[in-house]
């Protein structure tokens, strides 16, 4: 582990600083994309449970598209293909964004919308798992559609899907590593760079593997605490996990 405190080739930093910077990009990408995914995913999940109209169908098209194309191919779409398809001036503006933003922004949009499709499916399953009496009771009490979802259905649905959301939350940290293919120097890319500079493979990849383990543990802890905090005594779906 002495590797961490050795100086980098340019002499200005230690390898530890590279790891910290990589960790910073991994965390910001994961948390930013998670925010996008929660908002978009919830909206689409709700749209898929609406009784009729074009929205449920559009929701299905979204989910099928984003779930059936590999994340890496989607990454290339946002980074390489989209700027070419847009009007020249906008495309150029995207391509000329300063690094690392030129990679970070497409990666953020990509990972956010990709994860949104998966969250949408869970939200839909959560809403559909509720007894239909909930919806009927809400209408009988005079709730409009928006109020019914916001105050009655979604709070219960989210409690049901918290365990699967935990899984998704842990996955998004791992998926940030795909952004290295479009040039974002996040954790895994940092390990590769340190290895290329020092040829000390075990140490470089070992440290980064440990960091991922710690992230997974922390992410799990956060979700576990949320689950405990929102648990309702009378609500079976929010019960304790094994």
């Amino acid at each position: 582990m002495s590797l961490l405190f050795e100086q980098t080739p340019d002499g200005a930093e230690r390898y530890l600083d590279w790891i910290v910077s990589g960790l910073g990009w991994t965390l910001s990408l994961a948390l930013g994309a998670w925010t996008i995914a929660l908002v978009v995913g919830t909206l689409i999940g709700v749209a898929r449970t609406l009784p009729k109209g074009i929205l449920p169908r559009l929701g299905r098209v979204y989910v099928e598209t984003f779930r059936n194309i590999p994340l890496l191919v989607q990454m290339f779409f946002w980074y390489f293909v989209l700027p070419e398809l847009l009007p020249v001036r906008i495309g150029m503006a995207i391509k000329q964004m300063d690094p690392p933003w030129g990679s970070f922004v497409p990666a953020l949009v990509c990972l956010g919308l990709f994860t949104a499709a998966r969250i949408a499916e869970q939200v839909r399953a959560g809403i559909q798992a509720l007894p239909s009496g909930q919806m009927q009771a809400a209408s009988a009490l005079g709730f409009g559609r928006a109020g019914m979802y916001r105050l009655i259905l979604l709070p219960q649905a989210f409690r049901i899907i918290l365990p699967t959301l935990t899984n998704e939350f842990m996955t998004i940290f791992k998926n940030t590593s795909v952004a290295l293919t479009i040039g974002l120097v996040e954790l895994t890319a940092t390990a590769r760079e340190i290895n290329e500079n020092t040829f000390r493979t075990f140490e470089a990849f070992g440290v980064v593997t440990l960091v991922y383990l710690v992230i997974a543990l922390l992410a799990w802890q956060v979700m576990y605490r949320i689950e405990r905090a929102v648990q309702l005594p009378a609500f079976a779906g929010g019960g304790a996990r094994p």
Partner: protein
Amino acid sequence: MMVDLSAIAAATPYLLSGLWFTVQITLVGVTGGIVFGSLLAVARLSRNRLISTLATAYVNLMRSIPLILVIFWVFFLVPWAIGWLTRSGRPVAVGASLTIFVTFVLFEAAYYAEIVRAGFRSISPGQYSACEALGLSKLHAYIYILFPQAIRNVLPILLTQTIVLFQDTSLVYVISATDLLGAATKIAQRDGRLVEMYLTVGVIYFVVCYAASQFVKQLQGRLAYGAR
């Protein structure tokens, strides 16, 4: 920007050879992953604390780190490991495909293990007792009684995981292998046809995965009906 269809037509044979490698990785990953994963699942249920702890640690480790990181690990470690095994004392160069096959078996096994374990837990405890009462050995009980039921109970999830595996194979891009995406990238960079190539590849992945997922959905309905 115009999309040039003739560029896609010219690239088709090369793309198909890439797709074949993608399919090969998937097949090796599924077979090896389910075999090794089932062993891990059985090991996790073992009464021997050491064995179950080791299997649990392996599964949790693999599930906590990104696949790309595992690809790099195996890419750098396998040459050393072979050098050590053959006592030549130095790393031995191995082909990219061997590295990739090893990676996918090791990585996907952790995910299959969790699915198979869920399958074992879905079998009623009476089945385990019945095996003991009939005097079946552990091995026979697993092969003839428990494993077939476990697999049937989780078949849709196993297949869904296989679709995920098929998509995950695209990550071998990071060690410049020529799978479907790798083939497209090489042509895209040679001819300057990024848009055409990546859109084509996206459509191919979509068609394969969508068809497969619809099949799984149908199967799920049929299995649920049969269980009633």
